């Protein structure tokens, strides 16, 4: 195992062989490579197996409600811009329960990184179809096969105006780390959807499927063409991995908010009430 200042030494409750271990490793390597102080990092999550990840890192751990990590993370970042804020969760958490927040967080463009551990199944609740499960997969609650079409998170994110969209794979921790580094450095909302197997409940999208059905894009490619990004995000078998789209010139949510407009980054906790201005309003 790698050793970083972000390493946690307690028990981890994931299944042996779970893809989440690899994603955790990539995330820690990325934070370490960026030289971040753990006291400046907040990792926020909702509920699910992947959403336990903040507990397995040495930094500020925020574990909220199912599907609600994005509003939580947005509130944190807009209250203290000096923090590096990462929202992490699974496909059910982010795209199902939190689907509405996913779309609107993207539109808002807060300067946060959104890591989605996409194993195409519900793990914590023991194997029901998720928003990204393939049509036809038989599960405990869809015994005759899933009938709803899988959601395409990359295409949805692009259509909502995402400023950074990437897909990675738990099968390649190093390349995934590189993408997370880029995502954290990106100014604005960054989606990193990470394919990972669920060794307990998903018998289709296995480690073997991952290596057979994906291909890495050239790391140095120009990812500024949105139409090209949309086309790439619709490619399947193999599914492209890498940075699909990025646009660095866009205003973030925080930058548009009154407290920060003048360039003053003082966190909200140390700002006092604007009593003089309130008195003026009462004149």
């Amino acid at each position: 195992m790698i050793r970083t200042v972000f390493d946690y030494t307690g028990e981890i409750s994931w299944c042996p062989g779970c893809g989440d271990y690899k994603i955790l490793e990539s995330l820690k390597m990325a934070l370490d490579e960026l030289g971040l102080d753990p006291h400046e990092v907040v990792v926020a999550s909702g509920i699910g197996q992947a959403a336990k990840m903040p507990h397995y890192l040495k930094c500020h751990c925020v574990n909220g409600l199912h599907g609600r990590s994005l509003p939580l993370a947005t509130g944190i970042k807009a209250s203290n811009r000096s923090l590096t804020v990462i929202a992490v969760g699974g496909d059910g958490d982010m795209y199902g329960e939190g689907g509405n927040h996913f779309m609107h967080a993207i539109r808002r463009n807060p300067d946060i990184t959104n890591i989605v551990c996409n194993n195409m199944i519900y793990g914590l609740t023991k194997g029901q179809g998720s928003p990204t499960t393939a049509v036809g997969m038989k599960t405990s609650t869809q015994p005759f096969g899933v009938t709803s079409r899988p959601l395409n998170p990359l295409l949805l994110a692009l259509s909502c105006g995402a400023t950074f969209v990437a897909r990675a794979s738990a099968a390649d921790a190093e390349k995934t780390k590189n993408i997370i580094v880029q995502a954290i450095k990106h100014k604005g909302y960054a989606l990193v959807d990470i394919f990972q197997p669920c060794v307990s409940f998903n018998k289709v999208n296995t480690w073997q499927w991952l290596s057979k059905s994906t291909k890495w894009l050239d790391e140095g490619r120009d990812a500024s063409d949105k139409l090209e990004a949309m086309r790439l995000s619709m490619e399947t078998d193999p599914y492209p991995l890498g940075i699909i789209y990025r646009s660095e010139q866009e205003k973030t949510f925080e930058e548009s908010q009154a407290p920060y407009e003048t360039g003053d980054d003082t966190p909200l906790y140390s700002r006092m009430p604007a009593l003089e201005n309130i008195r003026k309003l009462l004149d």
Partner: protein
Amino acid sequence: MEKVHAPGSEVTISFCAAAGLGLQTAEDLARQMLTKAGYYVFSTREYMSRVRGGNNSTQIRVSRKPVRAYVDRIDWLFALSPQLRPNITENITDDTKILGDASAMGQEIASLGRTMIDLDLAKRASDLGSPKFSSMIVAGFIAGIFMLGEDSADTLIEKRFKDPDLSDKNKKAFRVGYGLGVDHVGGTPVLQVPDKPDNDEVFLDGNSAVALGAASAGCNYITAYPMSPGTGVFTFFAKNAKLFSAVVEQVEDEISAINMVVGAAYAGARAMTTTSGGGFVLMCEGLSLAGITETPVVVHLAQRPGPATGLATRTEQADLELALYAGHGEFPRALYAPVNVESAFRIAGQAFHTAHKYQVQSVILTDQYLLDTGYDVRRPDPSSVPAPIPPVRTDIDYKRYAFPAEGEYVSPFGVPGYGEGFVSFDSHEHTEDAHITEDRTLRKNMVDKRLKKKEALKSEALPPIVIGPENYDTVVVCWGSVFEPLKEAMEILGSRNTVLVACEQVYPISEELCRIMKSPFRKIFVEGNATGQFSRVVRSQTGIGADELILKYNGFQFTVEELVAKLGSLLGVKS
């Protein structure tokens, strides 16, 4: 006994018009001119849930003494759009002067068996260049009947219309109306200006009062999903975001609204979200999150009639039990109910103070009536609101949920990025350092830790406002916005053995209220709901509730006359 309306002591003006006619200008101007002239002025609005059309009304009470409440009586009715609604037509009497355009309203007024004074507004306005000027003619007419001077609105008009040409035309329209008004009263003003003490006053409505109180407490993060009548507070913040240096965000739904403020408050912002009952229901899960994570959050719950969509733009007091029981699991909370505009400012500040002092959730229960009601109040002092409580600087061993020291109720509140410690947050039952646990003893201790705060909340609960004689045998209890109409009604009834008890905090209830409830006296609760919710809440805490209830739930606030009649009949007093 004194009438609501002693002759010569006040004049009540009602404006009725379809939405979208720009009547607001006339109302605002009338209110400002009359205040400036030295009268006591009260105004309240009721409106239909539509953007255009319908028939909405504004009541302005102009008085020689302070007025704070809604009445039935109409002295001057500006009937500017057809299809007056029953809440107006039922209150027209032989003494009501009905004014407007006979061409538009003549038939309708005749069908009510009444006659009207034709102001020929449409034609006069067109002669001035646009039908839009009718509103200004009405404003001028009002200035005329009070004989305020034909230039009495000039500065207000200049302030409103920056374009000099438009400003001049409006002044002209105002003067046309002014002449008509003066002629109508034959040179004698309808009401003498009172000898008003020179208090430092400002006109404030409920919406502004809640927002300004919150801002004075340092509120610097507010979210909302638009929903009447909770939106007014948000609009006020949005408009003044720079002055308040506040993050203001309209979110995708109320679930996001509450979760975002929980995140903000965790990071140290002083955060509030504003909504109405239907939106508050969506916040229940988030409120529960704030409960287990001991995150200080303020929710403004502007009540309107339910269930479901109910009456979207009307008023009611039926979400008390919702607020009390909202959220799964057991956690403490403080519920406030401002009784009037002054109270709304003070209580908003108090709600923040309590939330941060005890790391709990405060809910401010207002309603459409209170929010849309305004009058002159002694200018509130922003520095009278308790100053924000700063977070602690964390050390390396910091634990967000450390068990408090003996005699304390809370763990020190740290924020991420300030100090050497990790500040964590967990929706699960958690250890002192905020990690998931299923330890049975720890679980029980954490529940006890959170619920122990109830003791402190109870001991600091605001005592009720008590008005009346020292010796009494009857207690009339209310909460929230029923206070002012009830107070005026009780003044009129003048019962010598009755006290009014008005609660600004409805949970936990104060020791003072407990004592009053345990007294052997007769208890009458007056509430704007159908089942007596506050009586039930009080009973659940004291074992004693109302002996009798006076309830209203048709979407409108009690009027003074109505309470005089209902309470008078219970007390055996006639006004």
